[in-house]
């Protein structure tokens, strides 16, 4: 019986990884579409979000059944909880990719600013790397790496902060940029949130390995107001 149970756990693991790859791809495409003004690519991201949601649904269903039928304890329990919680984070990351894609489609001949778009592209590269790294840490159950990845979140935060400042400065210079820059600010906020979800996933990797639920990166301080 243990063998069948182990296979099901292994399948959870694989499915979570597949979902993660899909989400990373969606994020990458959504940012690429945003800075390249590629509406077709953005539509593709929105269409494919259904698959991501289905992944989450299937994983949740499988976790619930394993809990009910196998009464998991110790490592098995932590594995299932990790997948359940982290898949919800992945799903939210996918939703943010959809939001970025929607603003790509919404834009109609707004004035643009290549400098800020370059900054968004840079933030996108950072988040892409973080997303790939966190999946790797998950697959290897490497909590040390997970802690490292969470530390990088401040880089994404500060990039998002810089984008906001740049938007405000450019808008002051050129009011015609207001419409476009509003979308830039939103996109940077989405990217920043994606970083937070990656941090959450890191926390679940740490939980899996150590059994401790700990916050790796908190924003609940009065710094950087």
């Amino acid at each position, binding site marked *: *019986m*243990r063998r069948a149970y182990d296979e099901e756990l292994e399948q959870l693991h694989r499915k979570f990884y597949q979902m993660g790859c899909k989400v990373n791809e969606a994020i990458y495409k959504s940012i690429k579409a945003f800075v390249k003004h590629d509406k077709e690519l953005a539509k593709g991201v929105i269409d494919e979000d259904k698959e991501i949601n289905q992944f989450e649904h299937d994983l949740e269903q499988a976790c*619930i059944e394993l809990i*009910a039928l196998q009464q998991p304890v110790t490592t098995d329990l932590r594995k299932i909880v990790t997948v359940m919680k982290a898949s919800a984070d992945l799903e939210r990351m996918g939703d943010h990719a959809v939001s970025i894609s929607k603003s790509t489609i919404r834009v109609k001949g707004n004035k643009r600013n290549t400098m800020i778009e370059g900054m968004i592209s840079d933030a996108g590269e950072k988040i892409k790397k973080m997303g790939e790294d966190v999946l790797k840490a998950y697959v290897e159950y490497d909590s040390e790496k997970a802690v490292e990845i969470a530390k990088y979140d401040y880089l994404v935060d500060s990039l998002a902060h810089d984008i906001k400042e740049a938007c405000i400065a450019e808008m002051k210079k050129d009011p015609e940029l207001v419409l476009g820059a509003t979308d830039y600010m939103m996109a940077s906020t989405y990217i920043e949130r994606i970083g937070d979800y990656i941090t959450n996933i890191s926390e679940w990797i740490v939980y899996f390995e150590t059994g401790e639920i700990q916050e790796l990166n908190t924003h609940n301080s009065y710094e950087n107001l």
Partner: protein
Amino acid sequence: MATKTSKIKVQDLKLWYGDFQALHGLDLEVPEKKITAFIGPSGCGKSTFIKTLNRMNDLVENCRIEGKVELDGKDIYGSKTDINQLRKKVGMVFQQPNPFPKSIYDNIAYGPRTHGIKKKAELDEIVERSLKQAAIWDEVKDYLDRNALSISGGQQQRICIARALAVEPEVLLMDEPTSALDPISTAKIEELVSQLKQDYTIVMVTHNMQQASRVSDETAFFLNGHIIEHADTRKIFTNPDQEETENYISGRFG
């Protein structure tokens, strides 16, 4: 669940021990090559019911039965039924391991011999195959002449399963096959049962709900001689339709 064929079909089965009615019109279909678990509190009729599936109840005095039990579409209570053939097709394993006080080899060869197999080579082959199927060959292959009562309880139970498999049954009835065993032996039997369903239809009575949830494909919940609910095991253990099922499974009963 994909399309399934019913191996056993029970219709409106009623059973009395003297004046006492133990089963009240049961209907049930047992899917082929799946594991069906019967759960329910003591005295609910699940063991009585499993015994009707190969007419073990014939041996009980004052036991009267009404209704139909079909195996592959043929009523096993019909006048044409050959009981020996029926029990060859529908084997049984009991709660207490009950090997014969004979050698391991003779335990396994017992059934095939009664069905007329005499050649040593043929019997050797059956013994080896059955012991392998019961996942105990490696543990006993060098001691086949040892008395079957001299090995551990968990091993004895697997000998009994091998003995049941030796006559090549199609259905295996198991009445609480692990309740007398320790967790390690229990895990071995559960593993074995989940392997056996590739070739056999298995019906298992268990008091251990976790066992039902771990190994079975379908679960039937018995109460006071009625089947309250019978469904996919995943459904029974995550969202049963009946309140009694819910209460029993979650330990809120009574």
